[in-house]
């Protein structure tokens, strides 16, 4: 059984034959918690209910508390102002009224404290509610006795202030947690329940009017199988992962990637479940359904990440239990001491000690900061999967990058064209594109993309030589397209190149293919694997922060060094096999460097697993197999800058929170013991310090850097 504190969910594995679910729920109820089978709609309903109840508690505490305070002012005024002699009857009357008004605050508004404290005591654990309840009870009983007997001080105003302010700080904490879950909730909610399944028309029908002949059924999305065809209308959510079969449209993937602009999709492009089709209907072939979709994989990873408890929170929680014990002991000792020395004020001092030292702020310091930071990250398209990653990222000194697929898009593009004959550039490209028309290789796609205007020429006798080139006849003329070696073999046109002589600048950037006829070289087409946008900015940001940036790649050393220099890396190391990368990383870690590894997750998986902080690209193959701590859902490298800034801000907020919470308790405790702090001051101090911590954490969620 795994419990997720921030989303208030528990995951239970059980054997239905031996133990019915109702028994588990009953067992949880016995522990003092309420449990329901998970359902996001029900959860949303519960949250609305919880919010309303909390507001009602706060509202009544404020309403009745104000009356009590007004009466207290009257009482103080009567006590100070000797000219107007408040008679004893009036004073007793006011005491009674104040008590009457405090009862609903205690019983109704403050019920959650009593319930929590009782649950914790029953389970033999000490939470921060215990001293609060102890303080409240002592204060109320003491004041009630004073009211009935007509002698002694009353503390009804302090009780009301304490309950009101504590409720407010809890409400803010609740709100932060809701905000943190809102993004996740959105992901849960978008999945549509139905899909329009296309049943292809029987084979004997003609191809004309295909769409009319096809039968379209609305079926539940869960009944879809991979391989099914579905129709997604404009404005609809896409229920499954799939590939576009026909149709041209744009798709809004903002939910998953944080990318606000719609992404254009045409036949052959992949779609992810949870995105929205914007403009035109798309026919989609289903590739993954239900739990196998990318959306579900990401959700699972994030939830698993949340279940891991931050180290710091665990330490503080263990510490807080002992702390509460100590507080109660100190309060007892102080109470006895003051009772012996100054019997009139022992009650007030004891209450002050109990209330002021409650480690509420300390308990809230880390969880609120974590939820706020994780939420802010997710909002920017960075999924944080480990709980201790943010601190590590903030402290990181060395950033190691993979090249292909990480710094570069992994997609070839035509970068240059060198003409060797009288033909125009456009014509050369058109010829080349026609030759490559049937191929799905990266180079073919790049050339087709470069020549994307105009009809392709009809070809015949097309022969594809995998890994080398193509030959075909266009207009009775034989054409060859391929690497220099291939052309040389086929036509003998290009002289045999020796490898070292190919050390031109063009060669270091990418590669070259040649288009020839059987007698003449027509042109050379340069192809380049372009860096992703933002790489330069990212590297210069990291260099400005005095971080070490290293490029680690499996490509040829010369190529890697050239790219590393161009982009401004401190160091560039090429010709590394996955094992080599791993060894290099291990060496850095052993030296004590805090290393961040950024990879596309496919060939870097071992290195990502070893690195203290690993960041993977969200478009990597199977995200559930990535061993990454963070995933860039939109594969935008610039998010690393933001994540780094956010992580540093997170650590700063965390430090502030803990420092404030500890410092406040250390400062307030002696004052309370010495009897300087009155109960109402203690109540304000304690609740305001929790409030400060919670609000400080929410700063993380609010601050939006310009994206």
């Amino acid at each position, binding site marked *: 059984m795994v419990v997720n504190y921030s989303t208030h969910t528990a995951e239970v594995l059980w054997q239905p034959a031996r133990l019915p679910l109702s028994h588990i729920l009953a067992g949880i109820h016995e522990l003092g918690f309420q449990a329901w089978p998970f359902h996001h709609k029900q959860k949303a309903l519960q949250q609305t209910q919880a919010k309303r109840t909390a507001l009602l508690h706060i509202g009544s505490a404020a*309403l009745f508390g104000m009356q009590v305070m007004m*009466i207290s002012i009257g009482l103080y005024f009567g006590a100070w102002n000797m000219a107007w002699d408040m008679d004893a009857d009036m004073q007793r*009357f006011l005491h009674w009224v104040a008590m009457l008004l405090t009862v609903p605050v205690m019983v109704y508004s403050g019920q959650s404290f009593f319930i929590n404290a009782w649950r914790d005591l029953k389970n033999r654990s000490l939470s921060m509610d215990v001293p609060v309840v102890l303080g409240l009870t002592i204060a109320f009983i003491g004041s009630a006795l004073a009211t009935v007997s007509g002698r002694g001080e009353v503390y009804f105003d302090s009780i009301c202030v304490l309950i009101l302010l504590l409720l407010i700080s809890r409400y803010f904490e609740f709100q932060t947690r809701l905000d943190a879950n809102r993004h996740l909730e959105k992901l849960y909610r978008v999945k549509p329940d139905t899909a329009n399944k296309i049943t292809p028309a029987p084979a004997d029908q003609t191809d004309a009017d295909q769409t009319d002949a096809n039968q379209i059924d609305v079926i539940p999305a869960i009944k879809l199988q991979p391989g099914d065809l579905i129709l997604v209308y404009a404005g609809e959510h896409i229920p499954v992962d799939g590939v576009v079969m026909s149709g041209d449209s744009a798709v809004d993937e903002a939910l998953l990637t944080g990318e606000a602009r719609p992404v254009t999709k045409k036949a052959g492009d992949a779609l992810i479940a949870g995105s929205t089709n914007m403009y035109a209907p798309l026919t989609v072939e289903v590739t993954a359904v239900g739990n196998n979709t990318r959306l579900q994989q990401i959700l699972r990873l994030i939830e698993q990440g949340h279940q891991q408890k931050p180290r710091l929170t665990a330490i503080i929680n263990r510490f807080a239990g002992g702390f509460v014990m100590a507080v109660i002991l100190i309060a007892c000792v102080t109470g006895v001491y003051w009772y012996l020395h100054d019997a009139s004020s022992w009650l007030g001092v004891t209450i002050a000690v109990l209330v002021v030292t409650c480690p509420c702020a300390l308990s809230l310091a880390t969880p609120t900061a974590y939820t706020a930071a994780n939420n802010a990250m997710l909002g920017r398209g960075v999924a944080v999967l480990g709980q201790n990653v943010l601190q590590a990222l903030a402290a990181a000194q060395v950033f190691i990058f993979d090249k292909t697929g990480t710094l570069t898009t992994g997609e070839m593009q035509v970068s240059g064209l060198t003409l060797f004959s009288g033909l125009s550039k456009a014509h050369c490209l058109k010829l080349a594109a026609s030759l490559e028309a049937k191929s799905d290789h990266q180079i073919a796609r790049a050339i087709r993309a470069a020549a994307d205007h105009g009809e392709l020429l009809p070809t015949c006798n097309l022969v594809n030589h995998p890994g080398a080139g193509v030959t075909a006849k266009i207009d009775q003329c034989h054409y060859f397209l391929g690497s220099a070696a291939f052309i040389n073999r086929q036509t003998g046109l290009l002289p045999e190149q020796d490898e070292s002589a190919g050390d031109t600048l063009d060669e270091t950037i990418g590669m070259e293919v040649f288009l020839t006829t059987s007698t003449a070289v027509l042109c050379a087409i340069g192809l380049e694997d372009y860096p992703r946008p933002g790489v330069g900015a990212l590297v210069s940001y990291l260099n400005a922060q005095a971080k070490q940036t290293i490029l680690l790649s499996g490509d040829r050393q010369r190529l890697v060094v050239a790219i590393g220099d161009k982009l401004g890396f401190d160091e560039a190391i090429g010709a590394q096999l996955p094992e080599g990368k791993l060894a290099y990383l291990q060496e850095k870690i052993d030296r004590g460097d805090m290393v961040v590894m950024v990879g596309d997750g496919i060939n870097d998986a071992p290195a990502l697993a070893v690195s203290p902080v690993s960041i993977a690209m969200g478009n990597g193959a199977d995200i559930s197999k990535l061993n990454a701590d963070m995933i860039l859902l939109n594969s935008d490298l610039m998010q690393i800058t933001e994540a780094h800034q956010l992580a540093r801000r997170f650590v700063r907020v965390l430090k502030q929170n803990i420092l404030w919470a500890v410092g406040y308790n250390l400062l307030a405790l002696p004052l309370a013991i010495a009897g300087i702090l009155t109960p109402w001051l203690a109540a304000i101090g304690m609740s305001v310090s929790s409030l400060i911590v919670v609000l400080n954490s929410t700063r993380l969620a609010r601050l939006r850097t310009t994206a």
Partner: protein
Amino acid sequence: MEVLYLLIPLSLLLVLLIACLLRWAIRSGQYDDLNGPAYRIVMDDDRPPDKEID
């Protein structure tokens, strides 16, 4: 000052009344969304019901 013996119980009644009002307001969902209603005026309702274009 004897009038206080009358006025304070009266104010208690008033407080009770306000508490009931608050309870009603919260229960009826008036505090569920504090930002949305401000945008209601710019939300057009004249979109035809979602009939799919085939």
